[in-house]
């Protein structure tokens, strides 16, 4: 069964304490992997797209990487404003762009 699993479910960091979030998947024929950030009461906000193993993307304190079985979202020296739920989604649906989402990692960064 196609599945996307994110870990940990929740993570609490001190400001400046770097860490990584994991997204593992068991989807055949991966076409792409997406990372989103979601703040409470809002819709997911797009962060990155990764298409092939070995690819990396960076934006400010965030860096996303992809292997054949998983993706990591590395957060370097986080700030309290990085607190949010981070979602990953796998694209498997061909031209219709259907996504399978993980349940997210709730990140709290304390000052």
């Amino acid at each position, binding site marked *: 069964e196609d599945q996307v699993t994110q870990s940990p479910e929740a993570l609490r960091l001190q400001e400046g304490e770097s860490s990584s979030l994991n997204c593992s998947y068991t989807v055949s024929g991966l076409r792409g992997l997406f990372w989103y950030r979601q703040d409470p009461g809002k819709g997911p906000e797009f962060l990155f797209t990764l298409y092939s193993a070995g690819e990396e993307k960076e934006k400010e304190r965030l860096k996303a990487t992809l292997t054949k079985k998983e993706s990591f979202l590395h957060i370097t020296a986080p700030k309290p404003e990085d607190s949010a739920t981070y979602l990953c989604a796998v694209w498997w649906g061909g031209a219709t762009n259907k996504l399978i989402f993980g*349940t997210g990692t709730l990140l709290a960064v304390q000052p």
Partner: protein
Amino acid sequence: DAGITQSPRHKVTETGTPVTLRCHQTENHRYMYWYRQDPGHGLRLIHYSYGVKDTDKGEVSDGYSVSRSKTEDFLLTLESATSSQTSVYFCAIRLSGREQNEQFFGPGTRLTVL
């Protein structure tokens, strides 16, 4: 925000009543999607559209119908709402362009069925 609005933003209704949620976009995107988000399940696809009057089912389509008579509007209808349909509903669009496959989401509609 890709010009996506959803209405209403909040709704409380009773079991058995019909409910229609509206998603409106201003940028002529071809693909539109409806998701629901529930604790422990993540976002799940209900229905999607790949053009005017062209729609298809997602993984949790039972109890829902959709319509798209204009490019800019994608409607989600609960014919007879049930308590299990209490959820947050998100509409999304997919950018139309070469090597652009990301979906962008609206602000969501919180629906409570009593």
